[in-house]
């Protein structure tokens, strides 16, 4: 099996971003996922976000684990290096890559099986270390590639396509990410591009561990009645706390909304996020409040979406380790090797 080649021609009038790239420059191979898969919508949102941010495509490293979601990095940013690694181990591979070169943008793509089951530990530890990354879980509550087994994010009581009822409690990765100290936590829905694109863009601009849980229905194995991850179910139970309407780099923003309904968040790198508040009482700077809010709504069967928490002054793993500004992978013997004179002294101290 090989891929269908994607035609290279494009409309001459295609819009270009600040760097002169078109949408096509952010695309990848043709997707081999099922037609209508929620994951393909997320791929489209990633392309859109990177285009809007005018990121140089090759300055992104795309890293994934194993599963349907983990295949997707091949379908966007074709000029970026990608790494389809080991099941559940994307976080460690990404952590290592990030340590080697702090200058690239790290996009971790994972699924609910990859992050909530086999890789739950790695998910947790990469978040608590504050690795500077955008960690996206394409969450469909089901193992797609192995044909429909429940994953650990499947809600208790939800039904599989074969009619089996899930009796295990679900893991809410957003709640866990908040508890572990992620400094940017959001949830969205693959079918809601207007909410998702700015969230991805804001997460990329965030310096620190950004986590986005994207509910992404599996049209083959988890889009039936009785599923709590189907398109219909999510649309009916979606409770957005806010929407990112404007995200405009470092420029000042002017938003035409009634006072009090828009909240501007300035991130560490100078980028600004304009949040349109839907739930007037919701404060995205209050970690504890976010946790309570989330738990209260989960009890009511509501799926809270939007930017749930952000710490604009977050630090990342490199600041904790006090590493040099120069990427470690560019250092050579002159910078790394102490040399023979030092070794002679070392020897002398051991006699």
């Amino acid at each position: 099996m090989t891929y269908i080649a994607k035609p290279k021609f494009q409309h001459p009038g295609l819009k270009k971003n600040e760097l002169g790239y078109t949408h096509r420059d952010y695309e990848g191979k043709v997707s081999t996922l099922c037609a209508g898969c929620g994951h393909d919508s997320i791929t489209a949102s990633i392309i859109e976000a990177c285009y809007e941010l005018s990121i140089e495509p090759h300055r992104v490293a795309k890293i994934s684990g194993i599963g349907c979601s983990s295949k997707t990095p091949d379908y966007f940013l074709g000029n970026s290096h990608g790494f389809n690694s080991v099941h559940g181990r994307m976080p460690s591979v990404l952590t290592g890559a990030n340590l080697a070169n702090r200058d690239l943008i790290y996009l971790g793509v994972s699924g609910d099986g990859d992050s909530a089951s086999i890789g739950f530990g790695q998910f947790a530890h990469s978040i608590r270390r504050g690795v500077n990354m955008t960690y996206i879980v394409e969450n469909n509550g089901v193992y797609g590639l192995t044909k429909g087994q429940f994953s650990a994010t499947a809600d208790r009581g939800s039904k599989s396509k074969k009619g089996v009822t899930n009796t295990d409690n679900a893991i809410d990765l957003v709640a866990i990410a908040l508890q572990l100290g992620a400094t940017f936590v959001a949830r969205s829905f693959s079918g809601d591009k207007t909410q998702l694109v700015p969230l991805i863009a804001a997460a990329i601009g965030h310096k620190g561990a950004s986590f986005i849980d994207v509910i992404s229905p599996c049209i083959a194995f988890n889009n039936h009645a009785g599923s709590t991850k189907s398109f219909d179910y999510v649309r009916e139970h979606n409770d957005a706390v806010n929407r990112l309407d404007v995200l405009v780099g470092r420029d000042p923003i002017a938003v035409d909304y009634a006072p009090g309904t828009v909240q501007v968040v300035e991130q560490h790198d100078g980028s600004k996020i304009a949040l349109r508040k839907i739930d007037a009482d919701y404060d995205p700077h209050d970690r504890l409040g976010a946790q309570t809010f989330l738990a209260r709504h989960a009890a009511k069967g509501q799926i809270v979406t939007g930017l749930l928490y952000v710490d604009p002054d977050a630090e990342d793993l490199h600041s904790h380790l006090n590493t040099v500004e120069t990427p470690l992978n560019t250092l050579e013997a002159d910078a790394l090797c102490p040399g023979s004179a030092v070794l002679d002294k070392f020897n002398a101290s051991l006699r």
Partner: protein
Amino acid sequence: MSDKKPISSVNDFVVRFANVNGSGSASANEMFARAILRHGVPVSPRNIFPSNIQGLPTWYEVRVTEAGHLGARGGVDMMVAMNPQTWDKDVAGIEPGGYLFYDSTKPMPSTKFRDDITVIGVPLTAITNSTYTDPRQRQLFKNIIYLGALSALLDMDPKLIEQLIGEQYKGKEKLLSSNVHALHLGRDWALQNLKCPLGLRIKKSDKVGDRIFIEGNSAAALGAVYGGATVCAWYPITPSSSVAEAFTAHCKKYRHDPATGQAKYAIVQGEDELASIGIVIGASWNGARAFTATSGPGISLMTEFIGLSYFAEIPAVIMNIQRAGPSTGMPTRTQQCDIIACAYASHGDTKHVLLFPEDPAEAFEFAAAAFDLAERLQTTIFLMLDLDIGMNHRLSRPLKWDDAKQYDRGKVMTAEMLEEGRDFGRYLDVDGDGIPYRTYPGTHPTKGSYFTRGTSRDRYARYSEEGSVYADNMQRLVRKFETAQDLVPRPLQANAERPTKYGVIYFGSTSPAMDEAIGLLEARGHQLDRLRIRAFPFHSSVASFLAEHDFVYVVEQNRDAQLRQLIVNENGIDPVRLVPIVHYDGTPITARYIAKTIGDHQDHLKVTPLRKAVS
């Protein structure tokens, strides 16, 4: 009371200290070993310790060896019995004619001693209690007091010990003088109350030379610093933890930018071994030199990633400080038991490069070389140490570095090369050595990017599940492994004085015991050619050595003769011609054991020793 003549020996005997873990004896015992070194007499000390922090028995053995035999000898000439828990076994272990040193504060029944040894009682507790009131001081200084008494009994120069104390407590005058005081308390008591010196004596010599006294783990960690490692990820496991800890200490000293204070390295203590190797793979994929240190159970956990490293061709350096397995096994005892586990680690058809350093100096050299090899070969390189080398101070030739040396970063295609229009296929064998070019992420806006996967891709890293494409790649990986043969450290051969049909193969920490055993075997009239294997894949000289000898002994420290299996398997050798000599009780192999087992086997083969035939 002895009915056996006391052992008399100058600069050639074994002293064993039996202590309770956590009693502060380790530093006094180490000072004893260092003091003998200062007399110009080589020593080979070994820690025999439990998997415990406080309370269980621990031993420290010092082999005093003017001849420079650094392997374990076996047997104890003098026991410093400070642990009532192990008294009976300790006393029983003394060689006939040997010496027992003990704390005689409380009287012991005569049944607790032996008639064929010399018993030396020093009232250590009484001396300590009459001098110190603080319980902690009493415990610590008791150790220094016995060191003082031993210095008199063994005729050691107290000035040399004082000098060591001075170096250790430089700038801490109070501690310095109180330690010197304790030393003389013990020494003076012995001189006044005992017949000093004993038959065992230390005499000044000049056999230490410029050698250094260092643990293999520290040397390997320094090798990683010199070899340019910038990322280290690890998970604590005995006996490897001190590699990462030493790397941290060395980096703090040598790897901070003097102007900014920033670190030219990143060390992460992973949540487990899976994360540790994942971080190493991620960092190496992105062009940094990265390593992890672990031991057997950690290797088991890492094997999925090790397979990925092999198939996706990502450099990695794994230092495996071997110990007796499993997790609830004997983590503080030494073995060479992960040879097969590492050589063929992981799923599918995999083979990995192993390096076998024999001592700290080689641990340093091979550790540094491992990073060049990993990047040149784009695969995992195992540095196979063991507890015996890793966690014991070993007298070793000084560490050396050539300042002209540049790192071999392997085949990396740069933006300039891509601009020139060089054909980039991530898995394309352009030079016929099986090694393809790689690019670092972020190299070029439109050229050189690729999607990393295991094997479902073609020479240009394009997705493919075609059988022929898979097979083509697997054959190239074999070619690459053949290339490795000539890049790894070659075996070292030492022939017997006279031509012989018998040979012996050995590796790693067996080295000093083997060197000594050769002398013992020669004394029995057995001539053997020696081949020390230093790496896998095996160089062609291994096959030649096997072809040149009728029988070859393979000496190793595991039950299943794993290196022998590897040699048989990789060289298609008739197994009958390879005689396994194995030692696997968790203690380091000794020259006596090797000489006896090989000697007995030679006798069994009805080999008439040359000397007998001639006489």
